[in-house]
């Protein structure tokens, strides 16, 4: 096994010549929930993209599960990433999106029915995602990410579009995920979600 799930050492990232991350250090152990907090433009999303192998670093080292993250199938079998709203497959309903995720992964964490209930989507299960509200689409994306088995969950502002009640419920769902041994790293502006997590700042100052 790995000593820690994530090891970030002296990470520096420039975007268009502008320094976004400077000498970032981060270590995350299995079962931890980490909230990356900070103002807009502080590099929260960039850090998540580095952890997902989608953003090359100018210098420094990023290791996830003991190796450099790579955008390949083996990596994505362990890692579930939820960033911007995904492009929903045309012609499939909300339920069918979850069915597809469940059918592809042999040991889903929950059934499609329970996911629809947990994420309050039962009544809109037959709608195509584009006809759902922004918050409902975010709940569907979260349901897909949490239905599938994974060891690491990377969430970029998971509270986007969610009402206060569901944000509280999401905190509970993430807690259950971590209790099963999963690790969560999320960029967030939500105080409730951040309060239940170890808070780190991309600038190196713990909030």
């Amino acid at each position, binding site marked *: 096994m790995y000593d820690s799930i994530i090891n970030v050492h002296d990470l520096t990232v420039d975007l268009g010549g502008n320094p976004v991350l400077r000498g970032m250090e981060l270590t995350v152990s299995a079962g931890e929930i980490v909230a990356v907090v900070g103002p807009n433009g502080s590099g929260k999303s960039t850090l998540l993209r580095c952890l997902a192998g989608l953003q090359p670093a100018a210098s420094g080292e990023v290791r996830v599960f003991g190796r450099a993250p*790579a955008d390949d199938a083996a990596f*994505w079998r362990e890692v579930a990433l939820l960033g911007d709203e995904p492009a929903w497959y045309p012609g499939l309903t909300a339920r069918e999106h979850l069915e597809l995720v469940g059918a*592809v992964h042999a040991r889903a964490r929950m059934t499609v029915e329970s996911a629809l209930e947990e994420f309050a989507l039962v009544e809109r299960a037959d709608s195509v995602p584009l006809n759902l509200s922004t918050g409902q689409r975010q709940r569907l994306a979260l349901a897909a990410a949490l239905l599938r088995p994974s060891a690491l969950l990377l969430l970029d502002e998971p509270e986007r579009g969610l009402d206060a009640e569901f944000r509280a419920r999401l905190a509970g769902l993430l807690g259950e995920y971590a209790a099963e041994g999963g690790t969560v790293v999320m960029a967030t502006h939500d105080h409730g979600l951040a309060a239940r997590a170890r808070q780190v700042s991309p600038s190196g100052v713990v909030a």
Partner: protein
Amino acid sequence: MTSGAEGNVRSVRAYVRSRGRAPRGLLDRYVSGFGLAMLLAVLGRPVSTVLTGLAGPVDPARMSAGAALVALALAGFLFAARTAGPVLLSPADASWLLLSPLNRRRLLARTGRVLIMVAVVAGAALGLGLLAVLGAPDQLVWRLLGALVLGVSAAVGGMALAVLGQASQSWQFWLTAAMVALLVLAVVAVSGQARTVLAVAASAPLTTVAASASTAAVVSALLVRRAWASLDRIPTRILLASSTRAGHVADAAVGLDPGALTWIAEENHWRARTLRSRRWPSLPAPLALAWQDWRRLARRPGRLAAMSGAAGLPVVLAQAGAGPAASGAVVLAGALAVAAAGVSGARWDRDNPALSRIVGVGHRPALAARALLPMVLSGAWATLALAGLSVSASLALAGLGAWASVGTAVPGAWSVGTAGLSAFSGGWWLFGPLVAPALAAGALRMAGRGPVDHSMPVIDTPGGAIPTGPLLWAATGADLAVLGCLPAIAALLSPPGALGWFLAAQGVFGALTLVGYAWRRGAGQAT
């Protein structure tokens, strides 16, 4: 009220113009006029050659197929008009001027004028097509004029019908009825049932042509008048929707990103549909991922029927006089287009891989599983089309045999009409399943291409500048399909006596193309 509102629209437009680009000066007008004169000078000779070639009777064997193509063209024009709107505004006008107290009819007048111009150009082309089908046994100029009036009347009247359809549901019904009638007419024409009617129309006296053209022009004018009156009754939500759609299309066209059009079309279609979830079948992961394309296709039976019906087009073209190479090219291009209709899942994941990362299937197995549907579709379509050509060839050869058995010389026109078909007698349909893997690989390569690369160089040639970015974009996918279908293409270019070796070579080429593509593309990534 009207004159005041008109004044308002004019002043608003004048204000917008004054803040936009500089007003057209003398030099701009000179450049436009010079360009138009050059166009006329370049096109003058070929057009006059084509028109002179229309004089005289037409091959009767080609008349039916030609009439079917003209009917299909008009139906396609009406369909395109209805899909586009046709009444729409620029996104900026839709946002700022539509939701205002300005006179609606005056606001939409400019669009109305553009629609009429588009319809006149399309109608002129239709009229020329009509004359090419029916021929001009005498009085070429008058018959040309009559055909042009008929074509323009049909297109302008059809456009007016589409505008009326935007304003009211009952006119929408008549528009649909007109399109269905044209499709029925095409089927009847291609079946040969309308041969007598077409022969009578081809040899109609000038007075009859003049009466038909006048009637069509009057009906068209009445429809245009009603459509003009209905402009201010088109519901705002419909105008907003068509204007937004046009804005997306314009963005895609300006940015030369035709892939965006697929997104728009798909999203608009599925937003308007009511679906019922069905259980996902228990399949291995790659096939479970690819199943979405099968389900999507099953949910569009109309598209499936249209694709099946289009398999008859190569036969129509061959009957209209196309040679074996042209008919074969249409078969391969059609089968590639049909294959491309079955790879939208791959296209979606290429454009935005977020969902595919959540799904987490390896690229190579996903690609292999996703090749199945385009293979089935293109194989079935090509087999149908080639079988249709073979059956028509057999019937044509039987017809030639009948002429010979009664001891009569075969009419030249008949033999010309069947020449394109006779090359397809035999087991050509066997190429259908054998080209399918190569076409599936081509369709998947098309689905995997990104937006047009505008940084590619522009090559200056004596015929004009050629931007290589759009050229490469258009060739991506088709190149692989052509490569994988080389034996079939060679057979089409010079039809051999025995197809055996070509079929065997095609089987090997097709399989190697697909396997090679999946192997090369599949290195490691998620879908």
